[in-house]
C-alpha cells in the first residue's frame, strides 16, 4: 500500500475524508480546508461536479449553472458560486482531489480512521494535459456519452464535460479499447501513459463525510408509460440535457424520433415516488418539472402546450409558491391533478396519447408530442456496499439513517452525511447539509483546526512564504511579452512570430518571446528567469483563459518579487485562436490588437495590496432558539467564544411550545439538553431579555450594542466586539386572522399549536370531540402567500394523535396541497389509514365558517365532487402561516441586510449560499431564513457555524485589494453611490479628515474591508470621483494607444511607420 504524505499534528490526523465530489462534497471540502484541515475529496468519476454539473438551469431563478460554477463550465465564479478554489491553478492547498477513486476499507474510530482508497488509472497526467483534444480526435472508439445522457457520443479518450476539475482528459480503457496507442502517440506533451496501474492509497483522517448523492429512478419497469419503447417518452434527466445550452442540441428541445420541435409536452409527476415501490416523496420533482415546463415555453414560444400531471404542488421554499404562480399565470402552464394511467404511441407520428381520469372522474385521451417522466430520487448505487464497509445503518428506503436531532450524523461516530444520501434534497439543502457536516467535523477535530495554514494575501491561494516584493514605483515600465504556442493549439492558428515582431516595437517593451508551454514548470521558470535577466517590472502573457490561468501566472511573477497585479494575461487561446479558425488571415491581426491593448494596460498597472486584519475570535449569535443554540454550541465546542442574545426571558424559542414531533422524538428533551449545554458552557455568554440595538464594522471586527431589560424595569447597554454575526431570530406561528381574533364569535377555532397543547394537557377534552375539521394554509389577510413548509406534517402529527386518542372522532382536513415531502409522506399515509378525510379546496373558493343554530360548520367547495359541503365541527384547528419573528425588520435595518417579500432574511444566493449574507461575516440560520423543521434548523445552524469558524480561527484576514476608492476632493455628496451599491457599503458620514467639493463636510466613504470590488459606484458616479483600483478609467479607455474601438487602424498606422 502506498501511503500519502502523512499530515498529522501531535500524532493525530488533522484531516478529513469527503466521499463524493458532487456539489455537497465540494462544499464540505472547502469549508474544512478553510478551517485548516487537510481534506481528501474522493470521487469515482474522472471529474468533480456530480449531478448538478449536468443541469443547465436552477429553479426558481433560472440562474444558469454556467455562471454559478460547476464542473460543466469551470469553477471560476468567485462571488455567487462555490469558490474559485477548485480551479486547477488555484486549488485550495488543503484539498487533495482523488478522482476515479473509491474507498475500499475503513478501520479505526472517530478522530482516527485509516481509510484505503483504490484509485483507478486516468492514463492522463492532469499536470501535463493542455486540453488540446488531440487524443480524442485520433481515438477510434466511439461510446455513448453518459454526461449527455447518451444523447451524443464521446471517444474513449474523453473529457467528461467541456470544463472540468481537474481540467484534463482521461482515457476510458474498458473492453472496447483495443490499446491501439494512438492517443499516447499523438499527445504533444507526453501526458498519456497507457500502462498506468491502479493505486491503493492509505489515508489517515479524523472524520469522514459521506456525500454520495442520489441516483434517478429508472422508469423502464413501468410498462404502461412506454419509457424505452416510445422514443418521445423521456427521462427528466434527458430533458435537462436537451434544454441545457451545453447539451447535445445546444438547448434546442427536439424529439428523439424525428428531431422536430414538439408543440406540446406533458410532464408526469411522481414517477418512482409516492407509490407502492417508493413510498417517499422525492421533494424536488414538482419544482424541476415546473422549471422544465417554463424552459419549454421560453424556447418554443408561449403557444406551446405544456401540461404537468401532478398530485400535489410541493413548492415549499422561499419564492417557490411565486414560481408556481408565475408558471400558471404568466406562462400558462396547465396543472392537472391526476396520475396518468397509460401512455400509447401513435406509430405514424410518434405522438403520445395519454389516458387519464380528470378531477370529475371522466376518462380522457389526450395527444402530446413529447412526454417527460419526472423521475424520483433513489439512494445511490454504492449505498449498500459502502454502508456495510463503514458499518452505518440505512433506513427502510435505503437512504442513510439519521436522527431528527442529529441530522448530519450517521450511526457510526465520526462519520457524517450530507445531501441526498440522507433523504431526497435540492441543491440549497445539500449545500446547507454539506457545510453543516463540516461543522460537525470541526467540532470533533476542534484541537486540530488551523493546522494547515494558508493565506489569501494574494489573488491566488498560497500556503508558502514568498520573497519580499520589489518596489517598482520609481521605475519606468519595463515590459516583457511572452506568447504561448500551447503546443500548436495557438501557433497553428496565430502567426506568433509576427505578433512578437510587432510587439518588439511597442513602447516600454524590453523583451518578447514565444514559449512552448507557458503553464508548465519550464515555461514559468523561463518567465521568471527573463524577469530577473531584463529587470522586468511588467509582464504580458498571451496564452489561455484568465479564469483558469491568472492565478498561475500571478503566482509566477510574485515568486520573483513582482506584485501579482503587474501582469496581463491575454486570452489568445479560448477567445482568439479557438474561435476564429475560420478566419486565418485576420486572427493574427486580432491577436496583435489584443496583445497591444494588454501592453497599454499593463504599463498603467500599479501594485495592489490587500489590507491585513485580525479577526476577533468571538461570535455574536442573535436568537436563542434551536438554531441559535445549535450554532452557538458548534462554535463554542470548536474553541471560540460566543455571545448568545435572546429577546425573551428564556432560551428555547419555538421549542418551548413543542411537545412532540411526528417522528416520535421528544423535543422537550432536546430543549433541556440544549439549554443545559448552553448555560454551562464556559465559552458561551447567554444574554436573555436582550436585543441588539446597534451593529457596525466589518467581517472580523464588528461592534454591537446589546440592550438588556432587567426584571426591575431598568436596563443596561453593553458594548461588545466580535468577528462574525449569526442571525437566528426564528419565526412564529402568525395569529392575525379574524377567526382567531374574534374568539367570542368563533370559540371553536384554535391554532394547531393550541391543539397540540390540548392533546398534551387536556386529553379529556380531546376524547369528547365528535367532529373536527382542520383547515390548512390560513394566512393573515393581506399577507403574501407562500408555503409554510412544516404545517402539513404538523397537522398529520396532530391528526394521528387525535385519532389514536379518539378513533370515533370524524376528522376532516381541508387543504390546498399536502406538502409532506421526503419521508414525511408516511405520516400522510398513516393519517389516511386512520380514516382521516381529506377535502381539497382552491384559492378561488376558500373555506368559510357558517353557523347553523349553535353548531359551527366549515363550508368548503369540494373540487372532486364539485359541490359545496357543510362540515359540522366541535373544533376547528387551523394551520396559520409561519411568519418571521417580530422585530426582523428592525434587525435587518441595524445589520443592513435585506429581507424577502415574505419578510424573511434574504441570503446571498438562494441555491449556493443559503447560509451567507451578501455582507461578509454575517450568516443566517434556521427559521429566520424560512419556515423549517427542527432537523433542518439544526443543519442550517451548523452550516452557519461552519462558515463562521474558519474566519474565527484564522490568524489574519486579508481584505480589500481591488476596491472602489473615492477622491473626496471631487465628491459632491449626491448619494448616487449609496443608492447604486448592491451591497449598501458607501456611506456619507461626516469625517474630520475629508472634505468634498465646496468644503462638503461629508464626502462618500467606502470601507475597503467591505467593498466587493464590482465597480458599480465607479461606473455611476456623475462627478467621476470614484475609481476602481486596477480598472481605472485610464486603464479602461487607454487613450495612449488610441482607445477601445480603433486599435486596428491605430496599429496599422504604427506598423506603417
Amino acid at each position, binding site marked *: 500500500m502506498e501511503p500519502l504524505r502523512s499530515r498529522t499534528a501531535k500524532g493525530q490526523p488533522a484531516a478529513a475524508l469527503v466521499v463524493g465530489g458532487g456539489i455537497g462534497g465540494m462544499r464540505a471540502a472547502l469549508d474544512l480546508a478553510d478551517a485548516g484541515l487537510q481534506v481528501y475529496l474522493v470521487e469515482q468519476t474522472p471529474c468533480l461536479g456530480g449531478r448538478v454539473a449536468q443541469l443547465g438551469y436552477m429553479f426558481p431563478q433560472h440562474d444558469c449553472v454556467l455562471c454559478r460554477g460547476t464542473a460543466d463550465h469551470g469553477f471560476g465564479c468567485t462571488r455567487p458560486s462555490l469558490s474559485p478554489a477548485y480551479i486547477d491553478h488555484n486549488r485550495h492547498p488543503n484539498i487533495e482531489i482523488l478522482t476515479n477513486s473509491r474507498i475500499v476499507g475503513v478501520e479505526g474510530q472517530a478522530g482516527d480512521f485509516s481509510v484505503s482508497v483504490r484509485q483507478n488509472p486516468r492514463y492522463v497526467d492532469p499536470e501535463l494535459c493542455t486540453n488540446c483534444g488531440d487524443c480524442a480526435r485520433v481515438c477510434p472508439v466511439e461510446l455513448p456519452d453518459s454526461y449527455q445522457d447518451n444523447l451524443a457520443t464521446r471517444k474513449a479518450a474523453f473529457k467528461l464535460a467541456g470544463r472540468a476539475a481537474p481540467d484534463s482528459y482521461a482515457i476510458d480503457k474498458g473492453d472496447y479499447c483495443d490499446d491501439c496507442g494512438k492517443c499516447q502517440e499523438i499527445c504533444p506533451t507526453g501526458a498519456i501513459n497507457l500502462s498506468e496501474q491502479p493505486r491503493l492509497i492509505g489515508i489517515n483522517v479524523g472524520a469522514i463525510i459521506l456525500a454520495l448523492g442520489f441516483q434517478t429512478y429508472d422508469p423502464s419497469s413501468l410498462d404502461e408509460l412506454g419509457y424505452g419503447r416510445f422514443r418521445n417518452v423521456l427521462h427528466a434527466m434527458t430533458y435537462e440535457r436537451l434544454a441545457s445550452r451545453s447539451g447535445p442540441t445546444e438547448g434546442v428541445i427536439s424529439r428523439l424520433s424525428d428531431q422536430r420541435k414538439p408543440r406540446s409536452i406533458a410532464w408526469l409527476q411522481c414517477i418512482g415516488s409516492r407509490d407502492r415501490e417508493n413510498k417517499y416523496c422525492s421533494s424536488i420533482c414538482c419544482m424541476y418539472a415546473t422549471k422544465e415546463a417554463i424552459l419549454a415555453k421560453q424556447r418554443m414560444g408561449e403557444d406551446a402546450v405544456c401540461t404537468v400531471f401532478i398530485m400535489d404542488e410541493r413548492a415549499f421554499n422561499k419564492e417557490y409558491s411565486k414560481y408556481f404562480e408565475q408558471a400558471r399565470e404568466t406562462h400558462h402552464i396547465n396543472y392537472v391533478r391526476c396520475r396518468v394511467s397509460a401512455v400509447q404511441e401513435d406509430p405514424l407520428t410518434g405522438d403520445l396519447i395519454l389516458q387519464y381520469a380528470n378531477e370529475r372522474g371522466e376518462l380522457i385521451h389526450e395527444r402530446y408530442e413529447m412526454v417527460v417522466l419526472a423521475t424520483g430520487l433513489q439512494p445511490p448505487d454504492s449505498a449498500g456496499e459502502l454502508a456495510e464497509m463503514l458499518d452505518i445503518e440505512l433506513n427502510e428506503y435505503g437512504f442513510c439513517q439519521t436522527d431528527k436531532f442529529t441530522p448530519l450524523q450517521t450511526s457510526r461516530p465520526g462519520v457524517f452525511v450530507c445531501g441526498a444520501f440522507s433523504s431526497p434534497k435540492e441543491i440549497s439543502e445539500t449545500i446547507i447539509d454539506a457545510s453543516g457536516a463540516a461543522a460537525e467535523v470541526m467540532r470533533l477535530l476542534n484541537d486540530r483546526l488551523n493546522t494547515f495554514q494558508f493565506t489569501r494575501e494574494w489573488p491566488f491561494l498560497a500556503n508558502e512564504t514568498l520573497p519580499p516584493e520589489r518596489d517598482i514605483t520609481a521605475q519606468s515600465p519595463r515590459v516583457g511579452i511572452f506568447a504561448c504556442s500551447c503546443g500548436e493549439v495557438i501557433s497553428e492558428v496565430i502567426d506568433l512570430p509576427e505578433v512578437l515582431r510587432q510587439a518588439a516595437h511597442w513602447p516600454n517593451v524590453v523583451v518578447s518571446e514565444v514559449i512552448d508551454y507557458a503553464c508548465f514548470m519550464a515555461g514559468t521558470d523561463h518567465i521568471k528567469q527573463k524577469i530577473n535577466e531584463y529587470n522586468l517590472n511588467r509582464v504580458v502573457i498571451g496564452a489561455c483563459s484568465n479564469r483558469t490561468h491568472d492565478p498561475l501566472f500571478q503566482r509566477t511573477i510574485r515568486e520573483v518579487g513582482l506584485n501579482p497585479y503587474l501582469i496581463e494575461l491575454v486570452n489568445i487561446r479560448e477567445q482568439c485562436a479557438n474561435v476564429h479558425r475560420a478566419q486565418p488571415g485576420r*486572427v493574427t491581426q486580432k491577436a496583435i490588437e489584443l496583445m497591444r491593448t494588454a501592453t497599454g494596460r499593463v504599463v498603467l498597472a500599479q501594485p495592489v495590496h490587500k489590507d491585513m486584519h485580525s479577526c476577533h475570535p468571538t461570535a455574536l449569535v442573535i436568537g436563542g432558539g434551536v438554531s441559535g443554540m445549535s450554532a452557538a454550541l458548534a462554535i463554542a465546542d470548536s474553541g471560540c467564544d460566543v455571545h448568545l442574545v435572546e429577546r425573551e426571558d428564556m432560551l428555547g424559542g419555538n421549542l418551548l411550545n413543542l411537545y412532540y414531533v411526528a417522528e416520535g422524538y421528544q423535543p422537550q428533551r432536546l430543549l433541556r439538553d440544549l439549554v443545559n449545554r448552553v448555560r454551562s458552557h464556559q465559552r458561551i455568554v447567554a444574554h436573555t431579555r436582550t436585543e441588539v440595538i446597534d451593529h457596525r464594522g466589518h467581517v472580523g471586527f464588528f461592534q454591537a450594542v446589546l440592550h438588556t431589560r432587567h426584571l426591575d424595569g431598568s436596563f443596561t447597554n453593553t458594548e461588545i466586539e466580535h468577528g462574525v454575526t449569526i442571525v437566528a431570530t426564528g419565526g412564529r406561528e402568525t395569529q392575525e386572522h379574524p377567526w382567531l381574533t374574534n374568539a367570542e364569535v368563533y370559540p371553536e377555532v384554535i391554532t394547531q399549536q393550541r391543539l397540540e397543547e390540548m392533546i398534551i394537557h387536556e386529553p379529556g377534552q380531546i376524547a369528547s370531540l365528535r367532529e373536527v375539521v382542520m383547515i390548512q394554509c390560513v394566512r393573515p389577510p393581506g399577507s403574501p402567500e407562500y408555503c409554510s413548509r412544516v404545517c402539513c406534517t404538523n397537522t398529520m402529527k396532530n391528526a394521528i394523535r387525535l385519532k389514536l386518542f379518539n378513533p370515533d372522532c370524524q376528522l376532516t382536513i381541508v387543504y390546498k396541497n399536502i406538502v409532506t415531502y421526503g419521508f414525511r409522506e408516511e405520516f400522510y399515509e398513516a393519517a389516511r389509514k386512520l380514516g382521516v378525510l381529506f377535502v381539497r379546496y382552491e384559492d378561488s373558493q376558500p373555506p368559510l365558517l357558517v353557523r347553523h343554530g349553535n353548531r359551527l360548520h366549515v363550508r368548503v367547495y369540494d373540487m372532486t365532487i364539485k359541490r359545496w359541503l357543510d362540515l359540522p365541527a366541535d373544533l376547528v384547528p387551523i394551520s396559520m402561516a409561519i411568519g418571521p419573528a417580530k422585530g426582523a425588520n428592525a434587525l435587518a435595518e441595524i445589520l443592513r441586510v435585506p429581507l424577502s417579500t415574505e419578510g424573511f432574511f434574504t441570503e446571498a444566493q438562494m441555491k449556493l449560499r443559503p447560509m451567507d449574507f451578501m455582507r461578509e461575516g454575517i450568516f443566517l440560520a434556521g427559521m429566520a431564513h424560512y419556515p423549517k423543521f427542527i432537523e433542518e434548523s439544526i443543519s442550517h445552524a451548523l452550516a452557519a457555524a461552519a462558515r463562521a469558524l474558519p474566519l474565527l480561527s484564522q490568524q489574519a484576514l486579508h481584505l480589500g485589494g481591488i476596491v472602489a476608492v473615492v477622491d473626496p476632493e471631487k465628491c459632491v455628496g449626491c448619494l448616487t453611490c449609496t443608492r447604486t451599491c448592491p451591497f449598501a457599503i458607501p456611506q456619507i458620514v461626516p469625517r474630520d479628515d475629508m472634505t468634498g467639493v465646496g468644503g462638503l463636510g461629508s464626502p462618500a466613504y467606502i470601507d475597503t474591508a467591505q467593498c466587493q470590488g464590482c465597480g458599480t459606484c465607479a461606473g455611476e458616479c456623475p462627478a467621476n470621483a470614484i475609481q476602481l483600483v486596477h480598472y481605472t478609467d485610464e486603464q479602461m479607455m487607454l487613450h495612449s494607444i488610441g482607445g477601445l*474601438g480603433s486599435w486596428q487602424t491605430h496599429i496599422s498606422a504604427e506598423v506603417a511607420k
Partner: protein
Amino acid sequence: MTGNDEFAFEPTIVAFCCHHCAYAAADLAGSLRLNYPESLRIIGLPCTGKVDVVHILKALEDGADGVMVAG
C-alpha cells in the same frame, strides 16, 4: 452571410463582459471551439455594473459599430 461580398458588412463590436459570467461563457465557447467573427472585441470587467456610459461612448467614438454589455 450571403455570397455577395459587396454587402457583407461585418461590424466591429466591443463587448464589455462580466468576468464571472459572460466572459466565462466566451471562454466556454473557446473550449468548445465554436466559431464567431473576429471583429468582436471582449473586454473583461469585474462586473457589468462597472461599465460607465463614457466607456460605451468612447468605444463608439473610437470606431466600434456596436457595443454589447453582457453579464
